[in-house]
């Protein structure tokens, strides 16, 4: 009865179809207008007027060589940085969060503050602080673009933390790890075979956010004089704004595909159940207490 009342009340408070469409349409417009404007911009025929695909064709006819070649290098840098950042964040953050959750629950609040802190620090302030660190780092590890992954690891920390934390709260990791240990699993097996599979959604969400942040990052790379996709696009836009916008659109599309792929991984259906064929099913009452 209570459930019935609750559901009736829930339906009564749910927005109507028109309201939902309006909200969806409004949000969709916010995202669509800039993208459509970018597409429209790349199709313009300049002073002649009208639209065609000439600029798209020209860009790809040349195979992104010559003046656009640095963009490809920058894209490679950004993808490498994204992978590096994801590895740094996940390898450091996931075990740390699990350790704090299982063994040191009193440190949860401290860890949260530490992880959330970078969101309140403007990129320019971060760079001012990081510059001396990077100058020291350059002496030992060189000044390759990959070193940016350490700075990006800090900037994506709040987002990755939130994504994993939301998943972690819904899983009784302490009991699961204890159950696995009593069954003979060492800590590595507990992590790989039990905890990570159950935190997959949070980890994938964290990884996606890290990738998205890194692919779109400009300030830190620019101020530390490193080349990534965004800094390369700015350079291109100074000579050829049309090509820069086309490349930006392609980057957006790639990020969209990445989102879809990660979303598919996160919601992948479980494998179909397999039952050993040698067994004879028991009578329906054998299961006992289905409730």
């Amino acid at each position: 009865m209570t459930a019935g009342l609750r559901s009736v009340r829930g339906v009564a408070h749910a927005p109507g179809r028109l309201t939902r469409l309006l909200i969806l349409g409004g949000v969709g417009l916010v995202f669509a207008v800039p993208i459509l404007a970018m597409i429209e911009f790349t199709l313009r025929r300049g002073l002649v007027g009208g639209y065609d695909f000439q600029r798209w064709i020209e860009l790809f006819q040349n195979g992104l060589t010559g003046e656009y070649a640095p963009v490809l290098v920058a894209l490679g840098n950004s993808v490498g940085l994204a992978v590096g950042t994801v590895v740094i964040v996940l390898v450091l953050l996931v075990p740390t969060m699990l350790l704090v959750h299982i063994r040191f629950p009193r440190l949860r609040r401290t860890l949260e503050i530490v992880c959330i802190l970078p969101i309140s620090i403007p990129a320019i302030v971060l760079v001012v602080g990081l510059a001396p660190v990077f100058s020291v780092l350059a002496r030992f590890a060189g000044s390759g673009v990959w070193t940016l992954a350490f700075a990006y690891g800090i900037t994506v920390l709040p987002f990755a933390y939130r994504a994993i934390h939301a998943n972690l709260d819904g899983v009784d990791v302490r009991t699961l790890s204890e159950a696995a240990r009593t069954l003979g699993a060492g800590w590595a097996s507990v992590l790989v075979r039990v905890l990570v599979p159950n935190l997959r959604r949070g980890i994938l969400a964290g990884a996606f956010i890290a990738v998205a942040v890194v692919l779109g990052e400009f300030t830190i790379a620019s101020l530390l004089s490193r080349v990534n996709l965004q800094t390369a696009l700015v350079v291109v836009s100074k000579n050829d704004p049309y090509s820069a916008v086309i490349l930006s659109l392609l980057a957006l599309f790639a990020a969209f595909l990445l989102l879809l792929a990660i979303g598919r991984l996160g919601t992948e259906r479980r494998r179909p159940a397999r039952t050993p064929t040698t067994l004879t099913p028991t009578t329906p009452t054998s299961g006992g207490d289905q409730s």
Partner: protein
Amino acid sequence: MSHIQTPPVQQKTVVEFAGVAKRYGSHLALTEFDLTLQPGELVALLGPSGSGKTTALRVLAGLESCDDGRILINGDDVSGLPTSRRDMGMVFQSYSLFPHLSAGENVEFGLRMRRVPAAERRERAAAALALVGLDAHYGRFAHELSGGQQQRVALARALVTRPRVLLLDEPLSALDAKVRVQLRDEIRRIQTELGITTLFVTHDQDEALAVADRVAVMRDGRIEQVGTPEELYTRPATPFIADFVGLSNRLPGAVRHGFAEVHGVVLPLLDPSHADGPVRVFVRPEDLTLVTAGTPGDAPAGMSLAGIVLVSSFLGSLRRTSVQLEQGGTVVVQHDVRDRHQVGESVLVRFAGAPVPVEAVQDLAAALPRRPRLVR
């Protein structure tokens, strides 16, 4: 079924806690904890919340370290061994199935950790699930199973590796009453069938008394008494046991010359050597009977007290009636469900004369509970 084999019969003690102590900061969770489990025995650790029973089980499992004392399994000191190498099966209070694995894969997990070949793994997992009546649920995931079924799978998972000891940490407390009783009996059946040495932690005395060969009642990190369920119920070693195990009426009285006296009714003592003086007397509700006052041969003089019925509760197979005694105070009488007494009816409460435990008090006023109550 043949894969869940009975462990070889051993004459020596399987589990021994020897002077185990565990501290959490300044709190002493276990102190001078000694307990042995014999082969094939089911011992229940019973006690109120915070008495240390789960800590004892977790120390045995290696999930907590002990600060003092030793844990011996089959004579070997395992105090320093990590959990994964103690070879124990454990069922937890909360549902602990791995959500990303099917029931069968959950049961296979322990075998996988022991590098058992895949074919044998599947066969043994299926046999273990058959043992708990869930062989048709091999491919189901935890969210597709009821709470009772999840705990059965957890039991199969704990048993499939043929552990030296089975640990049950309040495995029934999250289940509803009917399923709890079903699974309780099932656990006992399987435990007896396999002859596996088992430590069962519970705060539910009915559960402990129903399934255990022996019950260890804990209080403040120590074992207060260990004995068979009958011993605990009929011969409680301390007032705490008398108070905690089963239901008891607390009545003010006095000990004189080896007998307890309650409002003129003289009762034998469980411990006849108890010193004379004011005491609190514990009388089981089933050791009292009700007789309507004024009926012929209503009760022998000196073995009954007059009173008025306050309330009578129907409990299905029996009835409990509260009686306000003329001398003051209230007693609860447990009797046949067919004997009905009206509220306000004058009755006689007859004492069966069973030996009673008592607790010494400073004076009779202290023996009187502020609010007469039935303790459980």
